[in-house]
């Protein structure tokens, strides 16, 4: 305790975190595909927007146009959210000039995101490497002060943007960069259906994990705080739903045994 905290935008999760997140630090939200990571991280940004903070979403997986369409049912006002499209273009196999994403690239406001997908230009394609992304962000952060940022997802960054880099070291330095920039960040991380979590989980100051289990009545979702440096937190695994209001954690029904 003692440390000031900011809210995550998910009431039940704030309770589990005993108040919220310690600002200025990087956190991981992990879970298998389809467990609700993106929705949860958008709620985190929305909370910031409502408090007048400047927020940035870095899209590495889902194209911004689809994100916009997918979030429509929630009716959240995300107009002022900055969205950076950091998805590499279609690769060219012929020896044509490949441009690294330039430091001139600017995020667009959510309200300006179009309906269609960005098309790869005919004669050159844009490639995003972790190095060029870092340069871009450095320049951007000098120009503007951001409070909250989401990287969706770390897995995509590792898989598609670290071709000539050592993965764990590079991830570590990326997370270090976000910390030095003094912003509160959420990095989403894909988990395999079974087995161990990838090493990135250990690099952040905290990890919120989403679990997706099946039983007779369909998919059951659970959430747990795996790690939280500098704060106490709930040890239980709590059930949650994705409704029209987004991720809703049921902290109240205290007995949280996973289905037996």
């Amino acid at each position: 305790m003692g440390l000031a905290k900011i809210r995550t935008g998910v009431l039940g999760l704030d309770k589990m975190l005993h108040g919220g997140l310690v600002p200025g630090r990087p956190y991981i939200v992990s879970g298998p595909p389809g467990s609700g990571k993106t929705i949860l991280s958008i709620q985190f940004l929305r909370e910031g927007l409502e408090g007048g903070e400047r927020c940035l979403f870095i899209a590495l997986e889902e194209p911004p146009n689809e994100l916009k369409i997918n979030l429509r049912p929630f009716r959240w006002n995300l107009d002022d959210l900055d969205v950076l499209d950091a998805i590499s273009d279609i690769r060219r196999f012929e020896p044509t000039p490949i441009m690294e994403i330039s430091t001139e690239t600017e995020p667009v406001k959510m309200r300006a995101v179009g309906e269609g997908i960005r098309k790869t230009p005919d004669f050159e394609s844009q490639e995003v490497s972790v190095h060029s992304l870092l340069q871009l962000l450095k320049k951007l952060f000098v120009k503007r002060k951001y409070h909250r940022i989401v990287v969706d997802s770390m897995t995509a960054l590792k898989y598609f943007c670290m071709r000539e880099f050592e993965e764990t070291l590079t991830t570590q330095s990326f997370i270090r960069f976000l910390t030095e920039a003094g912003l509160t960040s959420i990095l989403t991380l894909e988990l395999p259906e079974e087995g161990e979590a990838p090493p990135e989980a250990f690099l952040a100051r905290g990890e919120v994990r989403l679990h997706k289990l099946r039983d007779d009545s369909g998919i059951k979702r659970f959430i747990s705080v795996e790690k939280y440096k500098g704060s106490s937190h709930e040890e239980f695994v709590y059930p949650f739903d994705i409704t029209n209001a987004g991720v809703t954690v049921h902290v109240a029904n205290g007995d949280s045994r996973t289905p037996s």
Partner: protein
Amino acid sequence: MSDRVSTGVEGLDVMLSGGLLPARPYVVSGPTGSGKTILAAQFLLDGLRRGEPCLLVTLDEPPSEVKANMGIFGWNLDRLKILDATPDIRAHRRTRSVIDVGTALDVRDMEDVQGVRQSSQIHALEVSVHSVQKMIKQEFSHRLEKAKERYRRIVVDSLTALKMFSMQGEDSRILIQSFMRFLSEIEATCLLVSERLNRTTIETEFFLSRGEIRLHKWLDGNVIRRAVSIEKFRGTRFDDHVRPLSIGGTGIVVQPNGQTSFRSGAVSLRVGESFLESRIIAEVSSVLDGVLHQIDEAHRKQIAVKDVEVAVSRAMVHFQRRNYQKALKQALACDSLLRQRLGDSPPPPPPTELPLPPGVAR
């Protein structure tokens, strides 16, 4: 909703609350023989019936076999364009005359398909993600130019084959990313057939796809049972139950209100697991059962066991994620803790007053 793309299977559309969202790539996964190719064919058939141009990229089965197999259902797939990307018999001596498929485009109408294409004596066709992408692109722009039509539906059967034939190491992730980006940019609704080879790694197509339809197949006694579930579907709500699926004379039928026993589902997961693994599963579940009973008992006797409950919930998560060793360790720890506490009970009645420290007079 009218802006949905039907899968061609009525029950599945109900589960998807209307169908797929257009212009996005989806994954169909499942073990061999679970009906992936039939589902994909029904998806294309539905498109043809609506007069949409459809393309099948086949890597597993040669077109002639696809044609024969689908003939059984009596579907009219004549207008389906089929792109034959099955690799030729490899010439063992690598020569310069090995060419990429891309340069020898073979797109045919289904009705023109006859025998298996014979491997050319002079050069063998090799398949890579690059060449398949190039083939689709050529065919796409060709069609756009000639008939002023865009392909609305594309099926790649299967991505697993593509990955196995042509991927070298690390780059495969980037190639798949780029391939899926390509498919989203041509704005066709795509089904990628993929077999999940390894549950402990995160495969690119599963997290990049906008949804996953998973087919299940298991042995129930000596009957093969089938089911379908939706594991992920971005941008809309969906039915998250496992629903029974059957393959009959008219193709795949899904009962959107049917129940299928999850116990059998669990058995299906066990097929193929080693004897040792099933032993440990039985072991963990019996220990967990015991622990849960003891917790109930503890509650009745009003013994504080909150910490044990926390530990049990962890053990169950491990169990569900199939980390059996960890689950067993945790469950056994809970078990011994509980035994200890329950053994201590009923606790001796607390002394009504604290004994006075020695040397203090009352």
